[in-house]
């Protein structure tokens, strides 16, 4: 037990280290009067990277545009960022670091609800507003508290939109559902889709599941083919990594029904992986990047110029909108150095024109009521079909 003493030594070493880096850490604190620190919480390595990286790029792009246009109230925005590495422990450390050491007055980020549920309470406890980019859990703001906002719509909206579209436009009466058990997002999307579909008189003939990382769906597809009568549509609740390969395997099996899904399908991987098999796919998403709307086109152009490639998916637009939402609130806040004032300003956001649709927070809600875009993929090309207003 004598080594307790050693532990104590270790502890003091840590404290020394903490002291040093707190003292030396990049200009720490929001006290610097000519800049406003906004924290970005994204994972640019690990499993989240494929959706978080575009979002972070969008986030930085918005901040750059704002700064180039003279900043906010005469102050420049500094985006404080540290990679959350798709790991809950790192993520929570990063959130805390951005608040405590960087002095962020507001935070934006995460495209995953479970990560948002871990990050949110830290911001809530510290009294710093947090705007979730693409975490679509409808109850997220209520579960975390009054400092939690969403830049995106809830899964309920997009699931209902694609369910309605399937029934009304594709004349679907029956559906097969394949759900990824590994994600909060995919299970929630599936739940809301099935609720809406059955509530409106449709029937789910079979629900099958897999786990993200599985690459072989032949067993599930064979089971689908063995059904006595084929369903009208195939609902696939998948994340982008698997959207393409599932489509490929379904079509290779000779199934021709429309495939319907949510924003997990909003990825070029569907066309790339499934190739000629990427046909008759319909999905709901935040925005059509093909839209002729000027806001969208300007964003796509700016993103392409900045990063040399077009926005990889709608999450880029959500990241962009997240920063703009925060900036809008900072402009209107009674005191742009006071997180509580920024929170109040965020809560009163009205008719903010954003790439992913006009954002307003209804009274007492911190989840925007936004339009959902329905997209269709035909022969490798994604086209805009229609907007469904909530």
């Amino acid at each position, binding site marked *: *037990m*004598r*080594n*307790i*003493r*050693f*532990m*104590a*030594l*270790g*502890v*003091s*070493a*840590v*404290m020394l*280290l*903490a002291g040093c*880096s*707190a003292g030396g850490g990049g200009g720490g604190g929001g006290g610097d009067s000519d800049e406003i620190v906004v924290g970005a919480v994204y994972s*640019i*390595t690990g499993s989240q990277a494929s959706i978080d990286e575009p979002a972070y790029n969008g986030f930085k792009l918005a901040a750059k545009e704002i700064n180039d246009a003279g900043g906010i109230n005469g102050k420049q925005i500094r985006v404080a*960022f*540290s*990679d959350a*590495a798709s*790991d*809950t*422990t*790192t993520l*929570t*450390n*990063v959130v*805390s*670091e951005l*608040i*405590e*050491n960087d002095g962020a007055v507001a935070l934006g980020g995460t495209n995953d*609800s*479970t990560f948002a*549920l*871990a990050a949110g*309470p*830290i911001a809530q*406890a*510290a009294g710093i507003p947090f705007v979730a980019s693409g975490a679509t859990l409808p*109850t997220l703001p209520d*579960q975390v508290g009054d400092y939690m906002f969403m830049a995106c719509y809830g899964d309920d909206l997009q699931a209902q939109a694609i369910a309605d579209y399937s029934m009304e436009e594709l004349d679907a009466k029956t559906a097969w559902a394949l759900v990824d*058990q*590994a*994600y*909060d997002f*995919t*299970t*929630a999307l599936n739940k809301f889709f099935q609720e809406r579909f059955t509530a409106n008189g449709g029937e789910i003939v079979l629900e099958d599941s897999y*786990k993200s990382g599985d690459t072989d769906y032949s067993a599930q597809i064979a089971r689908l083919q063995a059904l006595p009568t084929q369903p009208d549509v195939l609902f696939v609740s998948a994340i982008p990594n698997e959207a393409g390969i599932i489509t490929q395997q379904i079509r290779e099996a000779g199934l021709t029904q429309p495939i319907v899904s949510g924003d997990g399908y909003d990825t070029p991987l569907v066309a790339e992986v499934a190739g000629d098999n990427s046909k008759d796919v319909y999905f709901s998403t935040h925005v059509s990047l093909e839209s002729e709307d000027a806001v969208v086109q300007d964003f796509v152009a700016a993103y392409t110029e900045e990063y040399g490639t077009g926005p990889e998916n709608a999450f880029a637009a959500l990241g962009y909108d997240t920063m703009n939402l925060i900036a809008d609130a900072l402009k209107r806040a009674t005191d742009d150095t006071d997180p509580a004032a920024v929170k109040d300003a965020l809560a009163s956001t009205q008719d903010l024109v954003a790439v992913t649709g006009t954002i307003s927070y209804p009274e007492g809600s911190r989840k925007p009521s936004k339009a959902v875009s329905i997209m269709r993929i035909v022969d490798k090309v994604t086209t805009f079909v229609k907007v469904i207003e909530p």
Partner: protein
Amino acid sequence: MKSTIARKTVVLLGGLVLLVVLLGVADATLNNYYLRILQLIGIYIVLTASLNLTNGFTGDFSLGHAAFMAIGGYTSALLTMPLAARALQLAELPVWFQEFVSPFPLATVLGGILAALVALPVGLVVLRLRGHYLAVATLGLLIIVKSIASNWEPVTRGARGLSGLNAETNLWWAFGWAVITIFVVWRMVHSPFGRSMIAVRDDSVAAASRGVHVFRIRLVAFIMSAFFGGVGGALLAHQLTAITPPTYSFDLTFLIVIMLVIGGSGSVTGSVIGAIIMTILPVILRDLERRFELPGVSQIIIAAALIAFMIFRRQGLMGNRELHPSTWFMKKPATPASVDAPQQ
């Protein structure tokens, strides 16, 4: 002899007082971010020191520590979850469950106990294996536990996980459990039982021929290791406040294994050193990543460092030795530092 014992007690108490004072100072002066890192150090000490019981002392190389952490984490989370969060997340569970909120300390202990209870039948099965096969079997255990956490919707909420926990883990709990773990592990190792453990590790056939109940020793070590693994998992759950199956991933097991290996399997103080280094190093590297905008480099550095360690210093920093700070402070190195350390 008597004075040595008295001296030990004084040093022990002195050390504890110093630790309490230091933690008090840290608690009062550091911001929440540094406190989080410090808490993590405490939690990782619990996890590394407990993994040392199997991987270091009985030589049963387990890759399944995160499985026991998951059991402890989920159990404690279910027990402490505030009623409001429960109504939202766990409406399907029976009524009695909707009414009883356990205090955090009790939940932590129960989490550990459940992990230990699971370890009993699991140990009876997997400990029939040794070496590589045991490593893969315990990795299998981790995957099985994670599968259950991902699929047992009514209780674990599957992929959505459990969230809205109170942030109960603080410096005192983290280091309190760290001290308890070190104390228990140290006492186990420096007892006849511990000598049997080491005999089992070094030559189980010879140990058996000397009348050591080899299997029982290994099983007890496995269960104790699981208990503290469960406790550590509970502490982590209540730091993160939201847990999902990937929280207790193979990466986490691997991190604890790295801590153990770098500190030196077979040394209790080595576990402490390994946990401290491998908590702080990633933080420093992440800071460098930030400054030089090279995301992912820290993972590469840690992996390369691990390989280099295995090649050039595979016994870890401490090997089988222990640090005895008492001998430094009292300037009385009468006994060599490794006198009661396990002999190779």
